[in-house]
Structures are given as C-alpha cells and as structure tokens.
C-alpha cells in the first residue's frame, strides 16, 4: 500500500467514523435542535465520502441541497413549531422496541447487499468532471423518473402553498 493510499484510507475512516458518530447522536440525542445539528455532521461526512470517490458534482450537490436547503428547512420547522423561546426543547419519544426491530432489519438488509455485491466497484481515476455525465444521463436515460419526481415536487409545493394560504384566511 502506498503512502497515498494510506492517507486516503485515513481520510475515509475519519469521515466514516464522523458519519457514524453523528448518526448515533441523531438517533439518541434528546434535544431536537441538537439532533438537527448532528444531522449536519452526517451530511457533511457523506459529502466528504462522495468527494473521496471523486464524485465532485455529487459532493457539491449534497452540500448545496441537503445542508443548504433541507437541513435549514428542518431546523426552521423545529424552531417555528415548538417553543423556540424555550431552550430545553426535547425529544421525549426514546427508542422503543419496534424502532430497534426496524433498525435491525434495515441493517441486515445493508449487510446483505454489501456481502452479495460481486466485488467492490472500482473507482476509476477519472479526471473528467462528472457533471457532464450526470447531465446527459438526466436528460436521456433517466428523463422519465426525473420528470415524475419534478411533478411530485411541484405537487408538494402547491400543497404547501395551499395549506399556508388557508391559515392566512382564518
């Protein structure tokens, strides 16, 4: 193993551990806002993993969409719908047996997938940006699912606007 690979391994394990630890915090923290901020760690470490796989576009998109968009919305929702003036905001529902069962099943599925995959998908040392490939793919092979998703999102948006309007009328 060359020094280069060792370094990459170190970075990989560091990112993976951060991701795991943050995920653990997300699951166990009783403070809702802290949970949301732990999610930040998860998303960032996954973005790092994408970066390590040289999927640069995914890396940026992960941060842009999940960190800059969705996570902010989650935190907003938490802050707006709870007693934001009260710092001791907590998540009372601790893990029950069903949750543990579901988590165990999901984990088993993951292990199964990991074991049954024929081999590690080789990361070719591309220097070509991934953006073009993704773009071409989105507008050719995956066009239909992409458009269906867009329509779904549009429906969500309209629904959200409708719900928000109703409140104003009252």
């Amino acid at each position, binding site marked *: 193993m060359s020094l280069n690979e060792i370094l990459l391994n170190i970075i990989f394990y560091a990112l993976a551990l951060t991701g795991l630890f943050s995920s653990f915090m997300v699951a166990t923290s009783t403070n809702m806002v802290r949970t949301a901020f732990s999610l930040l760690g998860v998303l960032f470490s996954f973005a790092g993993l994408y970066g390590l796989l040289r999927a640069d576009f995914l890396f940026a998109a992960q941060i842009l969409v999940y960190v800059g968009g969705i996570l902010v919305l989650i935190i907003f929702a938490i802050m*707006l*719908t*709870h*007693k*934001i*003036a009260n710092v001791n905001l907590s998540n009372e529902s601790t893990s029950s047996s069903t949750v543990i069962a579901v988590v165990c099943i999901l984990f088993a599925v993951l292990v199964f997938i990991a074991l049954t995959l024929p081999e590690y998908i080789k990361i070719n040392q591309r220097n070509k940006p991934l953006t073009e490939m993704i773009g071409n793919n989105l507008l050719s092979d995956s066009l239909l699912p992409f458009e269906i998703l867009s329509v779904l999102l549009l429906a969500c948006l309209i629904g959200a606007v409708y*719900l*928000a309007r*109703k*409140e104003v009328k*009252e």
Partner: protein
Amino acid sequence: MPGIKTQEILVNMGPQHPSTHGVLRLVIKTDGELVTEVTPIVGYLHRCAEKIGENVTYDQWIPYTDRMDYIAAMGNNLGISLAVEKLLGMEAPPRAQVIRVLVCELNRVASHLIAFGTFGLDVGAFTPFLYAWREREMILNLFEMLCGARMTFNYIRIGGISFDIDQKFIDKTKEFIEWFEPRIKEYNDLLTYNRIFVERTAKIGIISPERAISYGLTGPNLRASGVNFDVRKDFPYCGYEKYQFNIPLGRDVPEIGAVTGDCWNRYYVRIEEMIESIKIIKQTLENIPAGEYYDAPKKIKPKAGEVYTRIENARGIVGFYIISDGSEKPVRAKVRAPSFINLSILPEIGKNVLVADLIAILGSIDIVLGEIDR
C-alpha cells in the same frame, strides 16, 4: 391551520436597547415578526421634578425644567418663566421677548434635527444622523456663545433673559442660517424621498385626526394627522402673532404613497417646521428692539393664585400649571409633558405591526425620556 401553532413570544425591548431613545422599556408580544401587543414601561429616569418644584423657589426650579426635555430645553425655560410672570402680573421687556422667540426657534431647529437624524437611524440610515449632528453642533455653539451652556441652558429667566445678545451672535446666527438653508434639500435628497425610506415609513402607523386629538397628541405628531393646531398661532405668546410663518400639516402625497398621519408625514412635518423656524429666526434677527433685557422684582413672591400656561415646544405643548399660596415656593408645580402624552398612543398604534414598523413608529413619535419620566 388548526394543526400548527406558532407560539407568541414576550420580548423585552429595553430598558437598554439601541432604538428606545433612552431608558424606555417596551414589553412586546410577538407572533413571529408581528407585534400583537406593546406595553411601554416608563419611569426609569424619574427624578421627582414636580416634587422638587414644590420645595425650591420659582427661580431655582428653572434649571430643573432644563432637564426635562433636554433636547429642546429653551421651551421649558420659557414655559415656566411665562407662568410665573403671569402669576406676578408682569411681562418681560420687548427685547427679551424677541430674543426668547429667537432662541426657542433655534432650539426647535436643533431638536427637529435630532428627530430627523434618529428617525433615519431607526430605519437603518446612519449617515443622515451625523449630518443632523453637524448642523446641531453649530446651533449648540451659538447657545454656548449665548449662555455658556450647550444643552441645559437656564437662559430664559422670570422677567427676561439671563444674558443679552451682541452683534457677534447675530452675525454668527446669520452665518448659520446661510449654511443651513441649502442643507434641507440635501436631507430631502438623501432621506426624505429615498425609495427605501418611503417604503419603510409611508402608510405605517397611521393616526387619524380624531384619534390623535383623543389621545392628546400635540406638536408635529398632531399636525402630521392634518389637525391645524399650533399654540404659536392660536394662542400666541411672546409676540408670535407678529411673525409670518406657516403651520406645516400632514397631507396625502400620492406620488410617493404617503397618507396623512403616517410615519412619513410625522417626519416630513418636522423637516418643514425647520424651514418655518428659520423664517421666524430671520424675522427676529431683522428687528431686535433696544432696551432692557431683564426686569424682574427683587423677590419673586407672587400672590396666591394659580395659572396654567402653555407654549409650543418642539415636541408639542408644554404646559406649566403653577399654584401659589403667596410664599416663595409654589404649592404645586405640574408640567404637562408632551412626550409623556404622545407616547401613550403607542399601545394603540403599535398593535399588529411588524417589529421593524414598531421601531419606525416609535422613532416618528420622537420622544425624550427625560421629559416622559421627569
């Protein structure tokens, strides 16, 4: 929506807060950015001025009146002096009368400059404040020349004024007017017709004339609602009837979207009042009669009786209600403080506005906490 509840937060704005213009505390209930209720809590600067008034002689109380509306202290001096003069049944010499008008109007300009500057500050424009400060500094220099004090003058006394003015003062005042007149246009360019400023202030905190009268608003706040009432015109004192000046009133300005009685009009009435004050100052400078400037009895000991006088100060009507029992000290010395009464409308118009609007409204009312708490 029934499912989602947003919580109302109770926020203490003040006593230490950048935009409360002193030690004012506003307890505001907010629903998100919306203010649903505002309760002003005053009294942090209470210095028992009225109680002190009952324990000192008439002369000795004048410096205390300085400390009420410390931004426009000349008017307070004038008010108490006029009240006691009325009790004594005397009048100040003509020269003193003219000089009183002169300094009061200068002080009104200085006070409106502060109102203009701090209002800009409240809506986020920092620079006009310093421009206002620059011009006000010149007026304060004039006052310093006059009586040595820059804010708490103790200049207008019972029976006249404490120091005569000289030619140098007149020249300097003329110099100031020459400098100041073009500045108004500068203010208008910089702030008054600035689009963001107009959007922030027009149609915000509208006070209807009926409501303004009912709440006892006076001064620019009342006139911005379109009510033509100015003590200087309607119940003249100190010879104000001799001077030519207009009473600026609030009005609808469709070009920019301002309506009578909104924050923009309250602001703009002050700008126009500065122009009118400058007119009066020019007229006083033209003919200052020669003669005595101070003529009071050795011992100020009015007969038993009571008197209520009012004058138009920068923030509205300052009334002095003095009851004498024939001794050297008044039995009751009550001040009608315009800021105190103007502020009482805030809970009414500060409802269901955004936090930023509340600040704009508070700024447009232009209060002085020294006067509210006395």
